[in-house]
């Protein structure tokens, strides 16, 4: 059992008890506990099960590198999976649940995978689910889906608030250990603006636990004074509980501040994402202890030596009464000494090195601790909890020399600098053979815009492990970062520190070094993803030589681990299997975030209504008052229709169309793009942009035009009005306004920059109202003002004037086939004019209509719609629009492309109308099938539906589509199989279903 010690713990306030629950069981901890320390204090060693084999797992680490103790926290809208117990601060009412098991943590059906482990080797998924093919859908997929995923997905919308915060800093120091604090001070003394981020709730990092003396004081005291000093400096910002999750291009740093995770009742946002621009970054991110690879190194009770020490010193938690320490370096002796001094039993230190002669070893021996050198662990005994270890010669194959009963094992395979942030933006690493670690290559730092390095590693993150060296390195790093940021650092010496001298480490990648297959199958490299020494060796044997490939094949270092614990042991095992050197094999790529950050923090304030701004026309309020059913069109909301009491949307659309065609309707067309193109070369410019000739258009007239990309495909259409000799107004589609304006600017600025043309996107400056139907003219005449007669204002012309006392510009253009006026007014007058038209139109039964009625009416007339008839692969020639392509022009955008052989291929599908034999509506997007099958055994196709509607005017289904040789096959009936199993028969016809001669619009 693990339990709470009676001694004083560094971080606990034992005056304040905290109640929490784990898997529904009520437990008690103290203020200052993490969830992990509190669980251990309550005797709860087992905290979860592993992902693949569902093996019982306890906590291994005490910090962000923890792979096993992942829990679901909270409930309902505040539930969050995969939270590390080691980084979760305890608060009153915390409720946690363990993961990866069913029905319970203690008894788990999925643990059968463990018994079958030899059938689940590396690459198991690739090997097993290959055949039979039919088994995929019915057998494999359901099983994989059932067992996939770490933790449970939250079901409710997140109830918390998040925010983004922007900062510009001269120096960002990451890590609030002694190195980070000292570097921050060195940088700040130059006057540089410094931000210091620490991911935990405490300053000082590991040093206070590891001991030593700085400037004649205990480390704790030194840290306290240094923090107070930094707090008084106005150019220093200090942040606890704020993890630097990534370092990106040109000094961009993301910080993830957890504001209320430890105090959920506090007000304000839960997380804050710091988006920082730093001139220089100091990574004082410390080092992480490596596990050792021996059989049973994942049994609950086997932990990192430093973690056992942390729990004892920081939280007053004893992980077990009898702890065997196993190591290849001196640092683990600190754990043995600490435990012994706390009155706990340390039956032996198993040191894999031939001799152990450092000061720490001597101190341990002096305390009466048995030290066995040249030995290793052959095997850990116990399943849900360590019961003992069998020791052997490290040099041998695992013949058991002795069995030592114990209930905990403290392992240390040496220390790996946390190089993640150094590496994110391209910093390179070198392998240090003496210290058995990858550390930052100071000559190959990540480079910024000026080509100079912008990241400096400091302290143990830079590979230094002795306190004096760490402080000296940090002092130098802080000063050099300040200098690189343009400041003059003060010449100051680093504080004097004393700590034990350590004997050198000896690398141990497998324990014992000659362990056979049976032991290797139980020696874990990656605890979270259940990757063992045997899996990596198998991958190497199967030809996976690249560390990146091996990672993906075995899942080594994936998920939340991201190489923190497993990386070095894994690649050393791979190197050994390939008989290569470690630097030759290299590391996998470190990618942000360092530890997972919440989706809420990434989203920040951008959620719900303010996810993106909504564009509203001046008449938006009126539509809302009149019950509009909205359709999103780009960032706009347009009324789809205005359903009345008891009406379906289809009923409403039919009513709107019928009344418009019979009398008069009105449409809010304000969202239509409006771009002014002005200048002496405006006509020449538009001739290049449109397929047809615009320069010949007379002022006062309108012309429908098509725009293509340089690749020949149709990208937009609309009516162009020539305002005067120098000025054109180009209408674009609603969704295309910004894009087309950008398209114009791109060509003007980058290709034809000597042409005298200006463009302005005035879409939002004008409201536009279409008044449509046989009574449209009568209605306008009733409003009074300008002459809107056929003679004065004929079809495809425009005029400025006044209607109902409001200055207007009226275009005689029609997208419905009816007599139609589009009336543009400055946006501020849009609502006033709309109201006047609605009022005056009452006697004609004026019918406001929405986008669906607009679509149906244009389809009845055979007008194309960008995005329906076009999809980025359609050229105007496909749509029977050759009349709108100038033959006289030498050039326009897309002309050369349209001359390519596959563009002129007569077999390109062409636009036709389609009418079903039984009057039903063709399914949208349906394909017309042809005889025979293609190489994949699929039915050949000969066309597809591009627009399809029920036409209230004609009382039947109408459609447009692209069909092979369509225009030459009028009257032919072709088959469109629907997804409903029914085959629709449709006759090829003219796409103009209504008023072919245009008698209604041209009156």
């Amino acid at each position: 059992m693990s339990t709470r010690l009676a001694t004083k713990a560094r971080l606990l306030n034992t005056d304040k008890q905290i109640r929490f629950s784990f898997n529904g069981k009520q437990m008690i901890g103290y203020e200052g506990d993490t969830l992990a320390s509190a669980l251990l204090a309550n005797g709860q060693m087992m905290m979860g099960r592993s992902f693949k084999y569902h093996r019982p797992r306890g906590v291994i680490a005490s910090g962000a590198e923890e792979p096993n103790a992942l829990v679901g926290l909270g409930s309902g809208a505040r539930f969050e999976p995969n939270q590390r117990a080691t980084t979760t601060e305890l608060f009153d009412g915390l409720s946690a649940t363990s993961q990866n098991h069913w029905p319970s943590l203690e008894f788990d059906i999925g643990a059968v995978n463990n018994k079958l482990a030899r059938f689940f080797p590396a690459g198991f998924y690739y090997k097993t689910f290959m055949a039979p093919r039919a088994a995929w859908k019915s057998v494999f997929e359901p099983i994989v889906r059932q067992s996939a995923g770490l933790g449970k997905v939250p079901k409710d919308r997140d109830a918390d608030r998040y925010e983004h915060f922007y900062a510009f800093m001269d120096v960002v120091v990451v890590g609030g250990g002694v190195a980070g604090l000292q570097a921050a001070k060195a940088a700040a003394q130059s006057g540089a603006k410094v931000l210091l981020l620490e991911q935990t709730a405490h300053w000082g990092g590991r040093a206070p636990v590891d001991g030593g003396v700085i400037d004649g004081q205990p480390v704790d005291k030194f840290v306290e004074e240094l923090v107070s000093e930094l707090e008084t400096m106005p150019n220093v910002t200090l942040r606890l509980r704020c993890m630097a999750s990534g370092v990106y291009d040109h000094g961009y740093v993301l910080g993830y501040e957890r504001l209320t995770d430890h105090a959920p009742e506090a007000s304000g946002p839960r997380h804050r994402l710091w988006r920082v621009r730093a001139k220089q970054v100091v990574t004082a991110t410390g080092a992480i202890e490596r596990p050792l690879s021996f059989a049973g190194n994942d049994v609950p009770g086997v932990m990192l030596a430093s973690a056992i020490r942390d729990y004892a010193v920081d939280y007053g938690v004893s992980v077990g009464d009898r702890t065997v320490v196993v190591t290849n370096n001196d640092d683990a002796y600190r754990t043995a000494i600490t435990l012994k001094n706390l009155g706990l039993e340390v039956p032996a230190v198993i040191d894999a090195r031939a001799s152990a002669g450092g000061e720490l070893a001597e101190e341990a021996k002096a305390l009466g601790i048995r030290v066995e050198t040249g030995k290793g662990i052959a095997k850990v005994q116990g399943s849900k909890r360590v019961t003992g270890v069998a020791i052997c010669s490290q040099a041998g194959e695992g013949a058991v020399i002795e069995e030592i009963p114990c209930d905990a094992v403290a392992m240390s395979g040496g220390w790996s600098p946390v190089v993640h942030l150094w590496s994110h933006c391209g910093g390179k690493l070198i392998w240090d053979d003496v210290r058995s670690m990858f550390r930052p290559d100071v000559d190959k730092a990540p480079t910024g815009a000026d080509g100079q390095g912008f990241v400096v590693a400091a302290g143990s993150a830079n590979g230094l492990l002795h306190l004096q060296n760490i402080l000296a390195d940090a002092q130098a790093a802080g000063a050099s970062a300040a200098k690189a940021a343009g400041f003059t650092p003060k010449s100051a010496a680093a504080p004097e520190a004393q700590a034990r001298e350590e004997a050198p480490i000896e690398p141990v990648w497998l324990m014992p070094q000659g362990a056979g297959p049976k032991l290797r199958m139980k020696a874990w490299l990656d605890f979270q993803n259940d990757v063992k020494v045997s899996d990596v060796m198998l991958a190497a044997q199967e030809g996976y030589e690249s560390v990146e490939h091996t990672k993906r094949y075995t899942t080594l270092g994936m998920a939340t681990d991201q190489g923190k614990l497993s990386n070095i042991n894994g690649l050393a095992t791979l190197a050994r299997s390939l008989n290569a050197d470690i630097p030759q094999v290299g590391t996998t790529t470190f990618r942000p975030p360092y530890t997972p950050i919440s989706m809420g923090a990434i989203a920040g304030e951008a959620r719900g209504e303010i996810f993106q701004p909504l564009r509203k026309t001046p008449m938006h309020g009126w539509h809302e008052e009149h019950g509009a059913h909205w359709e999103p069109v780009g960032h706009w909301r347009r009324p789809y229709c205005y359903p009345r009491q008891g009406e379906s949307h289809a009923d409403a659309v039919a009513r709107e169309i019928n009344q418009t065609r019979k009398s008069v309707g009105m449409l809010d067309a304000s969202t239509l793009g409006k771009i002014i193109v002005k200048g002496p070369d405006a006509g020449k410019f538009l001739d290049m942009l449109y397929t047809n000739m615009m320069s010949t258009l007379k002022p006062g007239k309108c012309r429908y035009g098509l725009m293509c990309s340089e690749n020949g495909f149709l990208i937009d259409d609309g009516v162009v009005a020539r305002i005067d000799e120098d000025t054109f107004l180009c209408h674009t589609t609603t969704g295309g306004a910004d894009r087309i304006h950008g398209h114009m600017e791109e060509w003007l600025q980058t290709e034809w920059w000597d042409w005298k043309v200006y463009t302005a996107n005035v879409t939002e400056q004008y409201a536009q109202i279409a008044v449509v139907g046989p009574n449209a003219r009568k209605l306008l005449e009733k409003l009074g003002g300008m002459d809107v007669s056929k003679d004065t204002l004929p079809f495809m012309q425009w005029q400025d004037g006044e209607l109902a006392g409001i200055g207007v510009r009226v275009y005689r253009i029609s997208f419905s086939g009816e007599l139609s006026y589009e009336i543009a007014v400055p946006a501020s007058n849009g609502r006033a004019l709309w109201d006047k038209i609605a009022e005056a139109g009452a006697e004609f039964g004026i019918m406001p209509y929405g986008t669906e009625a607009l679509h149906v009416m244009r389809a009845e007339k055979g007008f194309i719609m960008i995005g329906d008839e076009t999809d980025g692969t359609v050229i105007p020639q496909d749509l029977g629009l050759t009349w709108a392509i100038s033959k006289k022009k030498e050039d326009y955008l897309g002309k050369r492309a349209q001359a390519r052989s596959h563009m002129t291929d007569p077999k390109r599908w062409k636009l036709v109308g389609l009418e079903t034999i039984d009057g039903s509506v063709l399914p949208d997007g349906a394909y017309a099938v042809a005889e025979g099958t293609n190489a994949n055994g699929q039915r050949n196709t000969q066309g597809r539906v591009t627009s399809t509607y029920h036409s209230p005017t004609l009382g039947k289904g109408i459609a447009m589509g692209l069909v092979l040789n369509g225009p030459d096959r009028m009257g032919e009936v072709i088959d469109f199989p629907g997804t409903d199993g029914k085959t629709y028969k449709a006759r090829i016809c003219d796409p103009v279903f209504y008023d072919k001669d245009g008698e209604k619009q041209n009156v």
Partner: protein
Amino acid sequence: MLILHCPYCGVDAEETELHAGGEAHLKRFGPGSSDADFESYLFGRENPKGVHFERWRHVNGCGKWFHAARCTATLEVFGTYSAQVLEPPQDIRDAITAKRPGWSWRDIQ
């Protein structure tokens, strides 16, 4: 998240203010050009590890297009300059030569 200096409005713009426009200094081929020339103009692009010339637009700023000379491998920016030139100006080339002697890009050196 690059920072590029907009040569028009003088702002050191964050990448979120900018829109990348692909390779710089393309020569347009229109009607009458050969299939090979047209294909290369429309689809053929450099993909260097090292010195590269790109088009950017300060889209959430002054709206102007400009050119950037930078290193795709190290993120170093050699300079930004007007969109209204047919090839990189001499000062930009000199800046690159100072940092990357012997560089070349297409047939530019």
